[in-house]
């Protein structure tokens, strides 16, 4: 029993140390990875890049031409329209389109997706706004809905189900062939938006429905999607130009949109976006969509025109943290790192990151030798400490500290 209790203590110490020591290491030695800002210029029809290298910032285009700050801003007039207006350098028109700030702003949008948006605890309850209240402002409803075996509305004040409303909406969904329960419910659950478009709901058969409430009545519309297509994430948007309801990310690693009113599912001509470990940023303006996929070690910017046809692609990669000098040193110190949080996941869990290669073996052998000397100094029998030697060899610094915090003097 005493040996069992000791090994248990060693296990929890190794776990704690493999969280804390690497954390302290990165806290002390991690350097920022300069990820450049890249956007397509509607003036020059090429990519503009702003970044920094060795502590010096630069502005250039994809051909390596360097620019001053003012020149750079003039290459991206739609992004910097306010600045150009102040400095009176905004051209009257670009590509034959008059530079009216209202028009420019209406076409501008920004969408951002992180894997931790998808991999997160979901509320399960959502407010169903009145889409056609006739009021200028949206109001927070008194009830919240869930979709399990039916679409239930729960009155918050009484914490009771509103059976009439539940029956009304459940009936409407059933009418459209909705298969309960819902797998995904995505909308914009806030009153701070220009108007309400309800929710996009994926049912148990992976069908996609648009559900909202108009004057107290359910509005349901099924979206036609190709057979076999399953969505991993739906990101609803509230853009001024009202061209589409949402961005969707499929299992097939494609990005789609659903157009407003006619529910047409359109695939964006962007290759391979992995929603599990890449971030997505989509900037749109009057002429282009800049679809930026950002991974740990590369970025890929796909530029689409206003019809969402592919124009150009920019790709830039850099060294991962583990391949940089501080990562190399790390690989000589620790065989693994344990995290409770993960950049790509909002859940708290044990995330193991094994160190690539076997550089750490050198330190492990040194520590093994040190432990050998400690045991020898105690004049203990080596054969009673074989398990400890194994622990030190496998877990290195973590195990070495652990077996000496809880020394095996009992079995000397």
């Amino acid at each position: 029993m005493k040996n069992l209790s000791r090994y248990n203590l060693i296990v929890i110490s190794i776990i704690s140390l493999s969280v804390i020591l690497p954390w302290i290491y990165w806290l002390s030695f991690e350097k920022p990875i300069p990820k450049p800002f890249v956007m397509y210029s509607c003036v020059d029809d090429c990519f503009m890049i702003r970044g920094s290298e060795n502590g010096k910032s630069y502005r250039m285009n994809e051909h390596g031409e360097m620019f001053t700050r003012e020149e750079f801003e003039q290459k991206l007039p739609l992004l910097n329209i306010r600045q150009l207006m102040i400095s009176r350098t905004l051209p009257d028109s670009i590509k034959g389109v008059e530079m009216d700030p209202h028009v420019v702003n209406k076409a501008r949008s920004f969408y951002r997706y992180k894997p931790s948006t998808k991999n997160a605890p979901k509320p399960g309850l959502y407010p169903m706004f009145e889409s056609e209240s006739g009021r200028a402002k949206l109001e927070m409803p008194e009830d919240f809905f869930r979709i399990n075996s039916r679409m239930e509305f729960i009155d918050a004040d009484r914490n009771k189900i509103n059976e009439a409303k539940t029956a009304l909406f459940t009936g409407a969904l059933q009418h459209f062939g909705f298969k309960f329960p819902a797998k995904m419910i995505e909308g914009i659950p806030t009153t701070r938006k220009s108007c309400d478009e309800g929710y996009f709901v994926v049912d148990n058969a992976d069908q996609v429905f648009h559900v909202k409430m108009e004057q107290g009545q359910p509005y349901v519309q099924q979206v036609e999607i190709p057979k076999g297509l399953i969505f991993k994430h739906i990101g609803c948007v509230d853009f001024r130009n009202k061209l589409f309801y949402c961005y969707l990310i499929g299992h097939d690693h494609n990005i789609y949109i659903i157009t407003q009113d006619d529910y047409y599912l359109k695939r964006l001509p962007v290759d391979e976006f992995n929603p599990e470990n890449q971030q997505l940023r989509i900037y749109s303006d009057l002429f282009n969509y800049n679809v930026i996929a950002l991974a740990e070690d590369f970025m890929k910017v796909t530029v689409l025109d206003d019809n969402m046809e592919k124009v150009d692609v920019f790709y830039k990669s850099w060294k991962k943290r583990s391949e940089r000098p501080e990562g190399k040193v790390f690989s000589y110190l620790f065989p693994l790192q344990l995290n409770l949080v993960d950049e790509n996941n909002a859940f708290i869990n044990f995330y193991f990151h094994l160190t690539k290669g076997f550089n750490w073996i050198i330190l492990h052998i040194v520590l093994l030798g040190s432990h050998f000397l400690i045991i020898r100094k105690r004049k203990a029998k080596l054969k009673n400490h074989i398990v400890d030697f194994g622990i030190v060899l496998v877990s290195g610094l973590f195990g070495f500290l652990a077996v000496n915090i809880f020394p095996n003097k009992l079995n000397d």
Partner: protein
Amino acid sequence: MLKSMIYKEWLKIRWFLIGAAILGLFIIAYMFMNVQRSITFQGANAVWYNILFLNKMIFGIMKYVPLLIGIGIGVAQYFPETVNKRIKLTFHLPLFENRALMMMLSVGMICLLLTYLLHFMVFWMLSNYYFAHEITVASLITITPWFLSGLAAYFLVGLIVLEPVWKYRILYAFAAAMFVPLYLKSGMIGAYGPINIPLALLTVLISVSLLFSAYRFRKGEM
């Protein structure tokens, strides 16, 4: 013998345990009085909305309460055993030493679990009264590791207090200070879902910790 052992442990921890149970109930009552007040002033839908979408933890004040109760009961139970090395008396009882220790540990652990269970159930009932089960379940998932942290701290206090050598007491305290925060990482409401079971298993692992330092005591480490 078990009855006598329960009696002794109960004498040591009873006042602290009863105080802690009442304190916990007061804190839970206070939290839900706040909920009631917010509902009265802002409306229930706003309170629900804040929890569901703005990640507002109405029960955040509870975070360190189980931890403090666990440490307190551990100290109340094991500290009197180390004054003048009274643990020798326990080892001299006509029982196998580990059995005597396990009895002590079980009594303390069961008292602690019952206190936690009381708090957990009261929280559950009140939450169920005010909120839909989605909110209640996410809340319970969030507070579970806090209760586990108290249990883990209780086990580690036993280890630390019974250790005969000061140097190692301090080292154990370091190890405990590294381990217990794993239970208390902040996250979204409900984010602890995947890790609760691994954390519970680790808690089970350290439940017998005190056997280690007690054995060192018995073998005359100093």
